[in-house]
């Protein structure tokens, strides 16, 4: 039996009413800037603040609450030690502008992390600056542009992506000013080499790919892909948000990729914190090094220093040196796991995924379009359920909540109808995988009314997401 805690928790401004009050203007300020009214934020005692957020927290599900197999999100357990170390004053209490002699520890972390990421991915250099995967992609696109411009190759204004690509890929490419060309997948669920070949041209700046792709399928023809892309003079970009599948098994650098971004907040054990902060380091091959953002961390004999001397650098993409605490957590995690631990985590992530996939397919309730062998995740279709009982992927997802489980990603990638995208990760136990599979099977047998009216065990019943857009209430003043 599972049931979430429920509190009727008022908004902070309902907890204690605050009224408009004049304040004593600050004399020295120019009149044009003197505030007249007190900021209308309620004044609440610490005791009440604590309870408010305590109650709210209990109405929130995290990876520490239970299995969270959101595909393309790698919700795995994040060792507590990483967070503890990141909170030490010796790290968290440092200022980015300090004299370099007083931040040698931070620089060592960054320097060594860069080497570690290079080894894991097979790339030559990394920039640790991007704040998230999407910003890493954007940086990748800026590097692509810098590269072609440096080579006086000004006509390359197209980015090719498969139709399975993550939404941030086209969004980032578009932000960087590129035209998008989406190609449809082959019947195996992988890149259609013929289509790719036809689409590539002297206008192609880059081909963006995820491997394993968002169906969880490894693109076995990656070397051929790499060849034809490079033959046309374009670059090959690796969306490495999901390195969890391949660490210690195969490396994007060896597959022929020129640019890679990683999501440290996925594979490298930074908790998502409800949506960030993250870190999306970008790795490149030698030929792209000179374009990387400043500063880079270098070492001379014994001391680390920041190197700003990079005339071809694109400059900056984020303030300072990235989300340092996330870099630090990744560093700690990699140190702890070591080469065998990283490999093992990928192996078991893939094992868990294929284990669940097999059990679910054997049940006959769900279908698996495309190729069978998957890596860290797999995408099922609920199309049959929809046809038979009008139960949709959304309904299944909501009903899972009643079993105390977080649902998978739904309706992505777009090429699978009624998609359930399941990524168990390596940190789930067999018992939990089995219970999840059982729940999915049970749900498929339940009466449609039950499933369509789910959830019932959560703090609220099914939420009308569309309602929020129809009549926008986005602050408490708009209520």
């Amino acid at each position, binding site marked *: 039996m599972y049931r979430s805690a429920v509190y009727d928790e008022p908004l902070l401004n309902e907890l204690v009413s605050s009224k408009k009050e004049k*304040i004593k203007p600050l004399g*020295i300020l120019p009149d044009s*800037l003197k*505030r007249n009214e007190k900021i*209308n934020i*309620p*004044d609440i005692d610490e005791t009440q*603040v604590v309870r408010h957020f305590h109650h*709210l927290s209990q109405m*929130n599900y995290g990876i*520490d609450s239970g299995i969270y197999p959101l595909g393309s999100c790698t919700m795995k357990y994040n060792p507590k030690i990483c967070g503890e170390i990141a909170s030490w004053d010796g790290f968290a*209490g*440092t*200022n980015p*502008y300090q004299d370099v002699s007083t*931040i040698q520890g931070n620089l060592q972390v960054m320097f060594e992390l860069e080497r570690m990421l290079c080894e894991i991915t097979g790339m030559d250099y990394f920039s640790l600056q991007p*704040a998230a995967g*999407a910003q890493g*992609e954007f940086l990748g696109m*800026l590097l692509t542009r810098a590269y072609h411009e440096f080579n006086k190759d000004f006509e390359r204004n197209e980015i090719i992506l498969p139709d399975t690509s993550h*939404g*941030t890929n086209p*969004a980032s490419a*578009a932000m960087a*000013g590129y035209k998008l060309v989406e190609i449809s997948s082959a019947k195996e669920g992988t890149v259609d080499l013929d289509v790719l070949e036809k689409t590539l041209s002297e206008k192609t700046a880059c081909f963006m790919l995820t491997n394993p792709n968002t169906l969880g399928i490894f693109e*076995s023809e*990656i070397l051929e892909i790499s060849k034809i892309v490079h033959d046309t003079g374009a670059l090959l970009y690796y969306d490495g948000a999901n390195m969890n599948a391949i660490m210690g*098994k195969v490396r994007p650098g060896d597959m022929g990729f020129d640019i890679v971004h990683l*999501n440290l907040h996925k594979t490298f054990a930074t908790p*998502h*914190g*409800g*949506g960030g902060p993250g870190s999306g380091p970008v790795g490149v091959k030698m030929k792209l090094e000179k374009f990387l953002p400043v500063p880079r961390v270098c070492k001379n004999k014994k001391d680390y220093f920041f190197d700003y001397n990079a005339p071809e650098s694109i*400059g*900056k993409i*984020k*303030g*300072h040196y990235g*989300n340092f*605490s996330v870099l630090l957590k990744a560093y700690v995690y990699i*140190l*702890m796991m*070591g*080469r*065998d631990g990283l490999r093992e985590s990928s192996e078991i992530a893939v094992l868990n995924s294929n*284990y669940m996939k097999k059990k679910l397919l054997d049940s006959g309730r769900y279908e698996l379009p495309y190729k069978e*062998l998957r890596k860290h995740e797999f995408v099922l279709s609920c199309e049959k359920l929809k046809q038979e009982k009008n139960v949709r992927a959304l309904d299944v997802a*909501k009903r899972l*909540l009643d079993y105390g489980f977080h649902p998978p990603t739904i309706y992505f990638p777009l090429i699978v109808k009624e998609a359930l995208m399941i990524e168990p990760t*390596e*940190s789930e*136990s*067999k018992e939990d995988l089995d219970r999840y599979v059982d729940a999915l099977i049970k749900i498929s047998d339940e009466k449609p009314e039950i499933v369509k009216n789910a959830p019932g065990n959560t*703090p*609220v*019943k099914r939420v009308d997401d569309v309602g*929020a857009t129809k009549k926008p209430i*986005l602050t*408490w*003043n708009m209520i």
Partner: protein
Amino acid sequence: MKFIPNSAIKDTMLKEMGINDIEELFSDIPKKIGIKKLDMPKGLSQQDTEQRLRGIANKNKSFYDGVSFLGGGIKPHYIPSVVKSIISRAEFYTAYTPYQSEASQGFLQAMFEYQSMIAELTGMDISNCSLYGGFTALAEAALMCTRISRKKTFVIPQNISWEKKSILNNYAKGPGIEVKEVSYDVKTGKIDLEELKKHVDENTSGIYIENPNFFGVFEDKVDEISGIVKDTGSLFVVGIDPISLGVTKSPGEYGADIVIGEGRSFGNPMDFGGSSLGIFACKKEYLRQMPGRIIGITKDADDKRAFCMAFQTREQHIRRGRATSNICTNEGLCALAAVSYLSWLGGNGLEELSRINFEKGQKLAESIELLDGFEGMFSGVHFNEFVIKCSNDVNKVNKKLLKKDIQGGLVLDTWHPELKNCMLFGITERHADADIERLVSALKEVSHV
């Protein structure tokens, strides 16, 4: 194996699946590129890891190992234990983006409260629930101005940080926005209004100012600037230090359309420049052009109030290449820290905090300016940062201070050659009067040598 429960029983599982060797699961990887192992050491135990990291941390000097007066936007602020205890609640700390609203009401409500407070602070109608940081928030604002106005020149003053400019220029490349810089008045440190007028025209998508600006100086001609903006039909973007808003007018009151800023100082650590929190608020008419995520109120099936992500159709996971931004992961936990911090502080507390920062800033500046060899650079009224010109070589001064475990001001001439031997000092509520005295007496000593 650590953190991998099924490690111990993988053979059983493989057997159950009819698989002999785990390598079969990787048979789709071309032999040519498969690797046997990574070239890195074996893993460390938690105890050894902690020990190793203690050694590394000891190579740093943090704010607690001395005293620092670095300006430039990142300064030590007091973080109440309550905030740390709230953001470490695992239900928040280990949650993903709240895609499934029924299982995320707690975080969603907190973000709704965050948005409400930011709107209140900035005088805007609405706020998103965070961008990567204050620097990219400016870049996103510039893009948004172009989306709204379909014009392609964005005007900024010279008195903002070089990093911000560099980022803005990178973001501007995509849509081909031209970024124009307006010089500042070398006496006051404020934007030169005459110059500004010259730089704006019918192609201007938006005009940006900062209050206080990078030199800590307040731009007080806000009504004139607002007038100039309205005259050109462009958008008025204002950057703020949120702590200053306890005593200064909200940009909304002087006509801003978009307000951006760095919110780290609300309950987040300096984190070597990480843990940044991009504040982004605007008027409600621009809602559909906003970047980032927004939380709204709706109903559940029982007609009960419920929270969820709103206007997702602007976002990359739905609109892909035509989204208003590529934001997926944002800075959720930093926003949670901010809303807990502001709840703890309250309106009265923020006002007081603002005053203290103001007063400390005045006091420090006055104390330094009284010294031989140091003079205030700008006449404009400043907040908790300000620029001082030294008669000696500023780098030497800093090195000497460092020997006394004092980190002096930020040296400006690398990026502002016109400010040779100038330093940007900063101070906050965390600095005691004794710290000021310590700096002042150290400056006295070092300036002579």
